[in-house]
């Protein structure tokens, strides 16, 4: 498999350095860590931080900037960052008003972020957290570790960042973030596996006429393998599951997210059908995002995210943000 890499062991390091080199005025790297932070975090503002495995670019560091994240801890590819690195990020980002940790529901992320939060509290940093679990493909039952956190996380970053930027205190920022968690759903599909740099071959084998439905964001197989369908059929299948779960009324915000290897044209085709479906259900799309927001390396495929809106969420989504990957 051909990739633009040097040594797979340097993949994350070199990616982070390149990212800082692209945004030297806005972003810096904490020495001897894989943590990127905003160069200037306003004094007295609640810091919003996140992180997780690498391979999901532009998540996480792409959302560093005014109106979104203050810190992003990168782990190795598809591996959560260590508790030590998250703790360094939390301490570095605290501007005196506390820090909100946005965690995706994977055991490694939850364990390392919670440990880091406890460590930071011992240094008198006030910490709160939300755990994103928007993946509707996974049953939330005793047979799973709960639902996964996937692309809905971007809406959480946006809303929490906006609330913090508007001067909300730690509890207000946490509450706004939790409101998104409670009202968002996502489901994804893979047309191909991705290839991790260390492994160098596809994580799972998929026939030419097969796709995986209900995938996460780590190149793992989905909940079901089915025959290839048309874009409209895929959009129907994903959107129906998401809408049945979120059950919105009135206005929604949507994301058609590329998994890293999907042309924007195909994402627009899926978005076209998604918007038709919303109309058929009597829903109004207040905002529709289309692009690569939460990727899985070079995987081909997409996910559909729907957020049920109220006035507060609309205001916070519309609040200005200035980051490498998203500008509002």
């Amino acid at each position, binding site marked *: 498999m051909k990739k633009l890499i040097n040594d797979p062991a340097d993949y994350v390091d070199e990616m982070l350095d390149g990212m800082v080199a692209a945004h030297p005025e806005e972003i810096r790297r904490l020495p001897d860590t894989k943590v990127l932070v905003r160069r200037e975090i306003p004094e007295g503002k609640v810091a919003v931080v996140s992180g997780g495995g690498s391979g999901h670019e532009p998540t996480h560091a792409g959302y560093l900037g005014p109106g979104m994240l203050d810190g992003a801890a990168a782990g*190795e590819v598809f591996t959560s960052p*260590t508790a*030590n690195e998250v703790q360094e990020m939390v301490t570095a980002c605290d501007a005196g008003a506390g820090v909100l940790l946005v965690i995706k529901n994977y055991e490694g992320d939850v364990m390392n972020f919670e440990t880091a939060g406890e460590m930071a509290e011992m240094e008198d940093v006030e910490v709160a957290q939300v755990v994103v679990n928007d993946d509707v493909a996974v049953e939330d039952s005793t*047979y799973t*570790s709960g639902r996964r956190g996937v692309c809905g996380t971007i809406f959480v970053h946006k809303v929490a960042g906006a609330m913090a930027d508007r001067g909300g205190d730690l509890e207000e920022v946490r509450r706004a973030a939790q409101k998104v968690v409670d009202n968002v759903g996502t489901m994804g599909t893979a047309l191909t596996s991705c290839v991790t740099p260390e*492994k160098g071959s596809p994580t*799972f084998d998929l026939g030419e006429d097969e796709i995986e439905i209900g995938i996460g964001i780590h190149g793992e197989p989905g909940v079901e393998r089915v025959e290839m369908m048309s874009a409209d059929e895929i959009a129907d299948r994903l959107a129906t599951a998401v809408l049945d779960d979120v059950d919105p009324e009135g206005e929604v915000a949507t994301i058609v997210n590329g998994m890293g290897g999907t042309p924007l044209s195909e994402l627009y085709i899926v978005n076209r059908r998604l918007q038709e479906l919303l109309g058929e259900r009597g829903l109004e799309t207040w905002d529709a995002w289309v692009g690569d927001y939460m990727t899985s390396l070079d995987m081909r495929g997409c996910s559909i995210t729907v957020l049920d809106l109220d006035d507060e969420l609309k205001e916070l989504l519309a609040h200005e943000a200035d980051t490498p990957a998203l500008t509002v």
Partner: protein
Amino acid sequence: MTDVAREREAIVAAVDRIADRLADEKAYLTELDSAIGDADHGTNVSRGFGAAREAVVEADDASAEDLVKTVGMTLVSEVGGAAGPLYGGSFMHASGELEEGVTAASTVAFGEAFLEKVRDRGGAEVGAKTMVDAITPAVHTYKKSIEQDDLPPLAALAKAVDAAERGVDFTLPIRATKGRASYLGWRSVGHQDPGATSTLFILEEIHATAEEYLNGEGERDASSPSTPDDGEGE
């Protein structure tokens, strides 16, 4: 050589063997993880124990307890994911049991403390298709072999390795309810758990190190007053 120096040497040797073994099995563990996870387990544990090997060599005047704690802290800070806190946190937590050195009793206590921490932190019980499925039978078998069957530590360790191996086999036909594999639901059936497998490899290397360092000592322990009457023994 003093007992303390010998213990230290044995621990450094064990970490060295584990690091080599996991480096050798990196691709295999990653392959297992590809089937039901995210294809990073081999890379992660291999990187972690590689770093731990360097750390214990640098700290080789430390006590047994401190060396094992160093292993744990290194894993926590190098591995990330779930394997970092599970393996690392448990080595850190259990290292306290080795305060008085490495003995049959202290290693039983170590195993129990290790298992307790893994279960606490990961929230998994036996049957969830995780490393707990290998650690639990290994620890219980080791404890029983030492405390009830009066086996010498080396023989007890061999039985623990066998038990862990059966634990690994047990993960194959069951459905995962913890970890990333749980998201696959029934599709996780028929695949061996990579975490349980790396646990088995670690135990095998600890056993191999013990063979090197305990040879001859086992018999002495075995001939201690209490006479096993179960007719077992080799």
